[in-house]
């Protein structure tokens, strides 16, 4: 028999320790991480045990169990349960955590990953009185778990419960264990090498802990449940006050001062949904959330107005550039207003302050020798009689050969391009081939600033929240090496370059536009420097889509670092991926997609748009807007889940308790619900603190899902008709539900401000309830105590009907329907094509078995109810109402099963 081990591989510790503890005779051979000993496995693994029969054992736990087995200790239910838990739950968490500690230095996150498994272990230990996991004596389970935890818990400062520590110490004190651990993990380097190799070969699993933490249901301990119930009972306290916003908002000592910007939209285009979710809407959710959390927060944005695109548009429309900017600035402002983007200030870049500040930064860079002079070859279109701005040239990308690369950047490979490097350049306006002319320009000396930039980036990325794409894009920029970048342009519509030798030139937009953040703030308050020259007190967040990352993470910081004026640099860079439109791109020219000004013409409320866009927010990968999906999400999540719960909670209070919140005597079920809701609330806060906006939205929906299940299980509408005990129970359940509804209004506020306020008005909720429950790590309290009188309750959401959605899809589809018709013809006749597609996508997206099950029960219940009423010969109008409800439920069931609902029932009955 032979045991193969490799140094640095923590799995080998247990095998080695067990070998020593059981005293089984066996050879040991040390192999490298690359050596393959098990013939049928395609990757090298260790430990591996070669059995006398010639078979290999490659599972560390099976090796341990085997060694115990041959020494006379067979597996029991208890030991095998621990081994299974170790393999399925503990091991993945340990690996993830180790990776964070050893390779990334993220100790806090590493501890968070281990929290759940360590709690479970602590609880299990607390339930028994024995010294070890399964008995008074040590078993295979103890060694296996000890070894798994050893790399983390051998650091005595790693957070773990008292009982876990005691138990760990008992196993750890055995010399066999110590020796095994030392032999495998001599020094940290071996472990690091193993981890690097291991994670490189690890393919992502669908249930990898990193991705599911938002969806994981928690195992709740008795203590957690009691603690949540206690917090709940405290109710709203006096210390929670509503903070009024007073302009100008300035940084305050002792507060968290957050300066928030969203990428400045370019003025000559109407923003499409992708633009809106990418910057202003995401930033707005975060701003609203921050204000609720009591941060001292300033949210600024504005239109980016300089550049040739504006000049061109002006020529097209026969206006001056200024007039164009005025016109479109108003359009932008009104779109954002409709979307309820709550800027503290929405400015523009064509202002005096812009000129002042841009020129100041320019001079400071110039004085400090960070500008270079050079002649530049530039493309000039002879037929249009002007130099072509980068965006006005198109051609083949010199790097990846993408045929539609722009003069400044390739949309395909994302690399920056010098317009003259484009192959087969074309003037975008007249399609002529431009000629190359040379002229003198100024360059920002990025290579000279590179060292300082990297030092700052390490600090900023290390301490702040940068989305993964932002980090990658930035890193790839630095890896390619920085080159000097031209900051001047031969144009008229721009901030003039103040230097004598360049007096008929303007600043290039990429240099100029980010300075807009500063000048817009300066137009908001004279004391703008308190925000922008105050890195000690201010935390800066930039929101944008990923194409804007390099300008915010490399180029603009270089301008500010070079100016050496104690500027506030970005601490948190939150970038989204792209949003597509029904699997194609938004295109103004082809008329494809929904643009900001059209959203309100759809008749769909602003809040629903916000909800759906945020639900789709392209956080980790591109996502796609789809009408059919929007209808499904509206009907299933908003109407049936969220709206249904809140409405029913309120209706029960009105109908059964005369509009007064009943007395609540909590039993275990109620406390468990409170603890579940509280857990989701804490998740919500953890996620939003990191600007994971889409993930946090799922927590809100989970809260109302828990609420619905709880209501369904406790049936207050039945109990209210029962005896005193039952009526008491109905009261408690109703009271808890209406308080959950009140909490929902709070967590919804950043996402759906109007709905949130409507709920609060309907419930007559105290104004402090939102901010109070979102303080600290979040606390779910009874904010509507017994006796509280609520207002009039009415439905919050409306159903989006198939026909309505179909009409919208056609209207905004541009030239798309042609293609779809062709595709659909192969399935059925063309007239049916309109039905086929949304039906099919519904089936993909929404055949949620849980929901189908839930709805099936509801349909059955409602059917019984109708039959009962008919048997009792109740008034016709009452029966009619119930029948309508039944029909509606059946329709939802069809929808949930992915079928298209049966033809609409005869109209005329009230819903």
């Amino acid at each position: 028999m032979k045991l193969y081990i490799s140094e640095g591989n923590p799995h080998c510790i247990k095998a080695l320790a067990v070998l020593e503890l059981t005293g089984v005779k066996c050879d040991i051979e040390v192999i490298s991480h690359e050596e393959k000993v098990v013939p049928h496995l395609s990757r090298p693994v260790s430990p591996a045990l070669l059995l006398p029969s010639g078979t290999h054992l490659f599972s560390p736990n099976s090796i341990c169990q085997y060694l115990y087995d041959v020494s006379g200790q067979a597996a029991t239910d208890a030991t095998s349960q621990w081994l299974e838990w170790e393999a399925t739950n503990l091991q993945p968490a340990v690996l993830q955590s180790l990776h964070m500690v050893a390779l990334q230095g993220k100790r806090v996150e590493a501890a968070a990953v281990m929290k759940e498994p360590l709690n479970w272990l602590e609880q299990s230990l607390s339930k028994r009185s024995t010294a070890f996991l399964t008995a008074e004596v040590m078993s295979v389970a103890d060694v296996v778990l000890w070894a798994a935890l050893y790399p983390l818990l051998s650091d005595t400062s790693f957070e773990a419960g008292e009982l876990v520590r005691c138990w760990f110490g008992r196993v750890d004190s055995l010399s066999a264990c110590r020796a095994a651990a030392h032999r495998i993990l001599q020094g940290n380097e071996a472990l690091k090498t193993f981890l690097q190799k291991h994670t490189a070969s690890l393919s992502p699993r669908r249930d990898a802990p990193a991705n599911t933490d938002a969806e994981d249901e928690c195992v709740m301990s008795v203590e957690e449940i009691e603690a949540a119930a206690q917090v709940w009972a405290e109710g709203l306290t006096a210390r929670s006050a509503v903070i009024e916003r007073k302009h100008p908002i300035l940084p305050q000592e002792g507060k968290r001062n957050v300066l928030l910007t969203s990428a400045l939209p370019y003025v000559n285009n109407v923003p499409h949904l992708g633009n809106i979710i990418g910057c202003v809407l995401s930033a707005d959710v975060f701003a609203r959330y921050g204000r609720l959390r009591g941060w001292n927060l300033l949210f600024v944005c504005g239109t980016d107005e300089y550049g040739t695109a504006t000049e061109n548009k002006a020529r097209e429309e026969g206006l001056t550039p200024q007039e164009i900017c005025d016109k479109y600035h108003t359009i932008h402002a009104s779109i954002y207003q409709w979307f309820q983007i709550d800027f503290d200030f929405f400015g523009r870049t064509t202002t005096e302050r812009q000129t002042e500040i841009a020129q100041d930064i320019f001079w400071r860079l110039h004085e400090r020798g960070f500008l270079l002079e050079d002649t530049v070859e530039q493309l000039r279109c002879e037929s249009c009689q002007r130099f072509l701005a980068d965006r006005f040239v198109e051609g083949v990308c010199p790097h990846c050969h993408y045929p539609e690369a722009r003069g400044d950047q390739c949309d395909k490979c994302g690399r920056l391009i010098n317009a003259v490097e484009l192959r087969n350049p074309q003037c975008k306006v007249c399609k002529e081939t431009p000629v190359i002319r040379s002229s003198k320009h100024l360059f920002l000396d990025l290579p000279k600033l590179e060292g300082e930039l990297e030092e700052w980036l390490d600090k900023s990325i290390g301490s702040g929240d940068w989305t993964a794409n932002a980090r990658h894009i930035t890193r790839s920029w630095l890896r390619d090496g920085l080159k000097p970048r031209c900051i001047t342009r031969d144009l008229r519509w721009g901030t003039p370059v103040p230097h004598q030798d360049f007096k008929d030139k303007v600043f290039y937009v990429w240099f100029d536009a980010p300075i807009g953040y500063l000048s817009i703030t300066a137009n908001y308050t004279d004391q703008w420097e308190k925000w922008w020259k105050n890195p000690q007190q201010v935390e800066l967040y930039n929101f944008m889509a990923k194409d804007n990352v390099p300008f915010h993470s490399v180029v603009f910081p270089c301008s500010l670092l070079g100016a050496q004026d104690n500027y506030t640099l970005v601490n948190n860079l939150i970038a989204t991926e792209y949003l597509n439109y029904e699997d194609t791109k938004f295109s103004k020219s082809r008329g494809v997609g929904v643009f900001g000004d059209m959203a309100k013409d759809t008749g769909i409320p602003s809040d629903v748009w916000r909800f759906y866009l945020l639900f789709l927010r392209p956080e980790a990968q591109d996502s796609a807007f789809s009408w059919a999906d929007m209808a499904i999400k509206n009907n299933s999540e908003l109407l049936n889940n969220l709206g249904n719960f809140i409405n029913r909670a309120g209706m029960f209070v009105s109908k059964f308790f005369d509009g007064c919140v009943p007395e609540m005597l909590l039993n275990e079920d109620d406390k468990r619900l409170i603890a579940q809701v509280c857990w989701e609330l804490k998740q919500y806060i953890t996620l939003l603190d990191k600007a994971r906006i889409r993930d946090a939205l799922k927590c809100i929906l989970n809260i109302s899902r828990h609420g619905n299940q709880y209501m369904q299980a406790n049936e207050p509408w039945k109990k209210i008709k029962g005896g005193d005990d039952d009526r008491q129970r109905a009261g408690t359940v109703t009271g808890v539900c209406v308080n959950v509804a009140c909490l929902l209004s709070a967590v919804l506020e950043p996402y759906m401000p109007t709905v949130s306020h409507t709920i609060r008005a309907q419930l007559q909720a105290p104004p402090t309830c939102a901010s109070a429950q979102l303080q600290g790590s979040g606390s779910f309290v009874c904010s509507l105590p017994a006796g509280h009188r609520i207002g009039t309750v009415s439905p919050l959401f409306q159903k989006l009907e198939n026909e309505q959605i179909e009409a919208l899809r056609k209207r905004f589809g541009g030239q798309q329907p042609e293609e779809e018709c062709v595709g659909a013809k192969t399935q059925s006749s063309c007239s049916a094509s309109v039905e086929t597609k949304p039906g099919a996508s519904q089936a993909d997206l929404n055949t949620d078995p849980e929901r189908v099950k839930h709805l099936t029960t509801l349909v059955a219940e409602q059917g019984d109810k109708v039959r009962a009423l008919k048997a009792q010969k109740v008034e016709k109008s009452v029966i009619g109402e119930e029948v309508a409800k039944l029909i509606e439920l059946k329709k939802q069931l069809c929808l949930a099963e992915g079928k298209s609902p049966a033809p609409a029932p005869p109209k005329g009955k009230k819903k």
Partner: protein
Amino acid sequence: MALRELSSLERFLGLKKPNKYSTQGGKKVPVLQNNNGPALIGLVTIASHLVHEAKRAELLGDSAEQRAVVQQWIEHRITRLDNCSKEEVKVILKELNQYLEDKVYLAGNIFTLADILMYYGIHHIVVELAILEKERYLNVTRWFDHIQHYPGIRHHLPPVVVLRNRVYPNGHH
């Protein structure tokens, strides 16, 4: 999923009265409430328990060596096969195919719990395989066909058609 295979296993083992199970957590880990002791958690643990209850300990292996091999393949099933990615599926099939080259069952020449649980866990993958792929993983297919025809195993799962004669006789790639 896990609950259905446990009830199929109960029927195979001929246990008289079916147990009631619940699940725990987002991954829906099965839990068996037990009258004479604490609840049992986890597919492997519960399945092994049922085998003992049915006095069919030989299904867990006759010797220490076999017991270890059985345990290892069941662990392999729940840690690697369950929820694995598309890419990983190919690796798992390839490895399993090579392993089964000279074996009738996972533990060699005797039928064990490892075969049952691996069969339940891999069924949804084998169902999806094209004929060419089934031939590429010939040993897996042979083993699979063997298990699905083992009396009393298939219960909740549809049969998968396996062709006896090869369609792609030279398909070694």
